[in-house]
């Protein structure tokens, strides 16, 4: 559970790393989001934007207090499927905060160059390179141009 000042404890970090692996699991040669070492990035983003920070603290609070987690001796002790069930419980009980945590994890994961390589996205700023497209070709209008004007007349 985070401290009263909202700081994550080492226990929170261990939990969160596993949570992130459950949210975005390994694929091909990439580890899950937690094992990829993205927790620092998630914490940085949360520190920068209050909406994420508040939600992360609330989420970790909920995780540490979840009945099923407590009964089994902690989130880390659960089997993977049980961890997912615990997360679904939290998702339904604090939907908004869970959505914000998911969002910041996705933002961190999908900003990684190794992820970009896998999905076919060019890393780095969009500008100044942009993308190339062929110019507009008027022949695409051939069908619609056959239509008579149909806009509605109106009294002055």
């Amino acid at each position, binding site marked *: 559970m985070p401290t009263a000042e909202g700081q994550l404890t080492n226990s929170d970090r261990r939990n969160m790393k596993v949570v992130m692996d459950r949210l975005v699991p390994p694929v091909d040669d990439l580890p899950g989001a937690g094992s990829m070492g993205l927790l620092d990035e998630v914490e940085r983003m949360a520190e920068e934007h209050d909406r994420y920070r508040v939600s992360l603290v609330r989420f970790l609070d909920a995780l540490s207090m979840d009945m099923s987690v407590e009964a089994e001796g902690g989130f880390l002790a659960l089997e993977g499927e049980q961890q*997912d069930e615990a997360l679904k419980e939290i998702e339904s009980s604090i939907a908004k905060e869970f959505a914000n945590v998911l969002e910041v994890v996705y933002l961190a994961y*999908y900003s990684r160059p190794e992820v970009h390589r896998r999905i076919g*996205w060019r890393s*780095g700023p969009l*500008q100044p390179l942009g993308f190339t497209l062929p110019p507009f070709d*008027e022949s695409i209008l051939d069908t619609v141009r056959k239509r008579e004007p149909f806009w*509605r007349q109106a009294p002055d």
Partner: protein
Amino acid sequence: MSKGPVDVLIIGTGASGAAAAWRLSEAGFKVVCLEQGGWYRADQYPTAFGDWEFRSATSFAFDPNIRRLPEDYPVNDKNSDVSPLMFNAVGGSTVHWTAHTPRFHPSDFRVKSLDGVADDWPISYWDLEKYYDLNDEWMGCSGISGDPANPPRSQRPMPPLPLGPDGERIARGFDKLGWHWWPSDNYIASQPYRGRNACNNCGPNGLGCFQQAKGSTDVTYIPEAIKNGVEVRTNSRVFEITTNSDGRATGAMYYDDEGIEHHQSARSVIVAANGVGTPRLLLLSKSRKHPDGLANSSGMVGKNLMFHPYAMVSGFFDDAEPNTFKGALGNILMSQEFYETKSRRDFVRGYTYQMNRSTGPAKTATGFTIPPVQWGKGHHEEFALRFGKSALLAVISEDLPEEHNRVDLDPKLTDSNGIPAPRVTYKVSQNTRKLLDHGIRNAEKVLTAAGAHRVEATPVHRSGGWHLMGTARMGTDPATSVVDGNCQAHDADNLFIIDGSVFVTSAAVNPTPTIQAIALRAADYIINERQDLKA
């Protein structure tokens, strides 16, 4: 601290304020603009950075309640089906818009006469036509004339933006069904234009424009206005329009960024603070002559808020490679097949389809118009299905005015200067819901005809309050409207309102060209009929 009088004080430098500032300064009026935001340089926009998707979700979000920058004010939207969106900077929300620039139709100004609902405007399409043309030139319009769904219009200054293979695919879907479509007019330069670069198809054109290809008013009207002597005073948050014992406007009180109060006196005041900010300011400006707020003897200030509720319909395609993020995100082509009232339908008025592209990987995962990609098992498969392989048909509905949809002052919530924040109360009407349902059903047909293997719809997109209209409506009767057809307040003849607040109805298209045409026309009225306001 009081500053000496100017001819015209303009509050806001967005779409309308900037246009009026340029036009009035061309005619020799001494103009000061007060803007609560600051200047952005092109290299400060998110797309200049590798973490552009994080910035777009936080410090550059559309929603001021998420962004929470010092220049933003909070909006209480707890009782609204749609969240109002806006941006505070030189250029206003045109920094943030996607620059899709359709015009209203002639019928949009006569919905009472034609369909027996809402009210007619005191002006017509034809009153605005030359101002639409002027604005197209100054903002820089890419497009092509000949659209059969609209009155003929002059040749566009630049050719259309590329449709790309994804746009052409959707166009053919409309063709297969025999339904109208046309390349959108956009205020995005398809070729170099007046010192601005051509669009390089980077994608998310709602995040400022690094290339300055997009026509935000900080790169169109404002620089020309400044050349004419207009002073743009940034980080200046107006909290009251002052009036004299006759009830006429005398200027405005504002805070600078150090919280120091100032007064700028003026012979006339133009309010251009958007459909939420303008009624807020008028309601804040109470006086003995205006006990219910400035220009509010009709009680109409803040009422009849219109948003254009959107339904969002996404189609997913079996493309070999992700590619639908290449090109301007917003509004590449549109269809107005279902724009007008038909007696066989169970709703009045109609809608426009707008095609939008997809976007970057994080935004794809977090979702925007549809829920986020599922977490856990199946995440990567679902992500692969969506990323770079989708197109969106946005259904933009005509939103009819209803008095209970409104902006007023929140009794508790304030901005960082302690000024009461706006409170928005808004419900999507049954007519609109029926209209959107119709739009969803037909969008599914279009996307399927275009080859989509899956279609997913969001019936009302909550984060879609881009268009803020109707809260200080124009009309001929002072008992039921706030300004006349020239945007002059009925209650104070040197007060003008020129933003989307003055709209009588919303039409079913993006409002900005109409807002700007109205602003330019109001400026011409001042120039031609109100020389008394010039020193």
